[in-house]
């Protein structure tokens, strides 16, 4: 028992002391913060105004198309061919051409947009919306409906989701929490599972393993390595979460300040004071709303389950990774054995997208019960109020699952780690498992 602690200690310290660990630990959050900052920055950066010429032959849109921060509509009366030349000369982004057809029902399919570049989807939908609104107004008027009245009486449904305890819930926040949890487990299994595999291979290929297994049982060596690396992973994640939180707090507070500054600075210029303040206020309330949403997710339950699935999934796969490392003689031989391990992991990640739409369907149920996929899939399902018996069943099976894979891996490991120069296939592995 004392010896397994020594192994865990070595595995842990030798990795934590490595330069790459320290660099990754600090670089990870900076990268994450950087990505966040970058995306905020680039979203504010796109303030190029694209001027679009509108040649409206019947005048239904005249003066009614609304500009936004990226699009400016300019009415033109010039000759069509001349206008086209202007577009070609790059003075304008494109030309919106509304032909002289008075029947809106016919016109709706005849409108053209000419441009050098393929317009973005947002730009197209903006133009579509603008024209659609005007055409609709025409149609309403021709049917004797007052568009203003229609706008006033239109309802705007916003369903509030509540659970049976009548607490407010939010599908968006739930989905995000589940998905992020699943993603973290997926990454952790791959990153640190591969480390277990490489660690075993290192010991095998440097030939130190026989010296060590004359002091400790091969199984203890394997288990010590798996546990040691798990602790490295946990350490790194805790540091990452802490540092990321710190970095993003700093970054977002700076960015936010910038934004507010920008808003207040632009206010006097375009005079739309009310609208902008409205925006800011709205933003604040929506942040409050997110906080409230998160508060209503079963946080403690999700957190405890996250830890269980995080470790359970890693232990289940870590043992298999150790077995692969022991079976092969070189990195290139690992490929054939990696595939069956990778498939359930990738599958559970792909299936997760589906499960978010139907978190209580049979697909979700089975994938969250089977130990090879449950760590990721159950994490995704969990915020959607999974029945306790299902969680209990899933966790029990996961525990049985990792005991089984560890036992299986132990057998492969014991034989494989002292076997050199042999090309190993599945038949051979099966022999090792059957043997003794």
């Amino acid at each position, binding site marked *: 028992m004392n010896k397994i602690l020594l192994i865990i200690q*070595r595995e842990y310290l030798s990795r934590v002391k490595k330069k790459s660990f320290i660099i990754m630990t600090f670089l990870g959050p900076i990268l994450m913060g950087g990505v966040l900052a970058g995306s905020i920055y680039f979203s504010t950066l796109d303030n190029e105004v694209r001027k679009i010429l509108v040649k409206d032959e019947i005048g239904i849109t005249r003066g009614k198309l609304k500009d936004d921060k990226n699009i400016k509509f300019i009415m033109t009366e010039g000759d069509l061919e001349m206008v086209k030349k202007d577009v070609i000369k790059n003075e304008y982004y494109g030309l919106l051409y509304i032909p002289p057809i008075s029947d809106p029902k016919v016109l709706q399919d005849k409108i053209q947009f000419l441009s050098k570049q393929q317009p973005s989807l947002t730009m197209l939908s903006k133009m579509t919306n603008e024209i659609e609104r005007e055409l609709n107004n025409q149609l309403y008027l021709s049917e004797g409906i007052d568009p203003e009245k229609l706008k006033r009486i239109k309802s705007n449904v916003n369903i509030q989701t509540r659970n049976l305890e009548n607490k407010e819930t939010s599908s968006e926040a739930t989905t995000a929490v589940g998905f992020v949890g699943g993603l973290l487990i997926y990454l952790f299994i791959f990153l640190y599972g591969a480390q277990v595999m490489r660690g075993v291979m*290192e010991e095998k290929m*440097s*030939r*130190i393993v026989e*010296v060590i297994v*004359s*002091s400790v049982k091969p199984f203890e060596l394997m288990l010590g390595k798996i546990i040691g690396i798990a602790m490295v992973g946990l350490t790194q994640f805790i540091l990452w979460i802490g540092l990321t939180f710190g970095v993003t707090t700093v970054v977002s507070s700076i960015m936010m300040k910038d934004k507010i500054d920008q808003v207040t600075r632009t206010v006097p210029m375009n005079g739309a004071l009310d609208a902008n303040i409205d925006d800011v206020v709205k933003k604040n309330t929506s942040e409050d709303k997110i906080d409230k949403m998160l508060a209503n997710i079963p946080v403690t339950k999700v957190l405890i389950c996250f830890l269980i699935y995080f470790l359970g999934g890693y232990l289940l796969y870590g043992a298999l990774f150790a077995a692969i490392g022991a079976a092969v003689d070189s990195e290139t031989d690992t490929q054939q054995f990696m595939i069956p391990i990778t498939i359930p992991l990738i599958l559970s990640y792909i299936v997760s997208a589906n499960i978010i739409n139907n978190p209580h369907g049979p697909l979700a149920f089975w994938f969250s019960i089977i130990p090879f996929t449950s760590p990721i899939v159950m994490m995704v399902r969990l915020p959607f109020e999974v029945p306790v018996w299902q969680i209990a069943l899933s966790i029990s099976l996961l525990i049985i699952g990792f005991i089984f894979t560890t036992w299986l891996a132990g057998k492969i490991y014991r034989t494989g780690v002292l076997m050199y120069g042999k090309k190993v296939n599945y038949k051979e592995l099966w022999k090792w498992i059957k*043997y*003794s």
Partner: protein
Amino acid sequence: MSSILSIQKVVKRYAQHTALNGVSLEIPTGSVFGLLGPNGAGKTSLIRIITQITAPDEGKILFNGMPLSTLHINEMGYLPEERGLYKKMEIGEQAVYLAKLKGLNSNEANKQLKYWFEKFEIQSWWNKKVEDLSKGMAQKVQFIITILHQPKFIILDEPFTGFDPINAELIKNELLELKKSGTTIVLSTHRMESVEELCTHIALINKSNVILEGDIHQVKNSNRSHTYEIKYKGNVISFTTALWSGYELISNASMGEINIAKVKLLHGNNTNQLLQTLLPHVEIESFTELIPSMSDIFIKTIEQSSSIK
């Protein structure tokens, strides 16, 4: 002499073949025991059973009269043939780690290591990594690690490979030193001259069976072929004629005036009778028994056991 290790009818089977087929051996306390045999004979399998890396399928092993168990792991030192060290770990650090795995505490491990590093004059290696050392240097460190916890029982599998003659001599002297202090050493090697120099006992394993075992002098005695080398001056023909009955002339070579002949005694004749037969005919310069080398015994015994099967 009592046995530190008593191996009784040990059988080890693998999926395709039997590695040990009822092997029994007594390893006397304080001996240097040569474990010999061709490649693939089952030596490594036997060693791995003794070091408890694997378990035998049948048979039992007693260590100092007690059934071999994990309690004995710390009393053994093992230098495997396939040996190495962590490439990226500092020498001193991993030596301490490996010593701790053998049950030493940090203080003892550091103290012992300091002693050995000074003795071998390699103190400057402490903070180096294995990848910066030559193969021979790494072997030296491995040897130290093997004996660091002062085991009473050491198994060395090809300990001299990778050493230059100076370092091989250094290791040999350490082994003699250990032997003097009462440590039992099992030496598995293909280098027969090391066996001649160091071993007090040997066992020869071939095709999963022990085919020769015992005190090295007894083994040599029982493998005497009663062949003598005679250097003489005189007529070759009369020398040959004199040996007509009761002796076999294996070879005769002339080196100028002196002839060197190899003669084997037949029908229980002794050396005095041989000399009496020869003295009237030639002038004898020297007369020596050709004692078989371990290498000869090795080859002869393996060939015999193979031809029986």
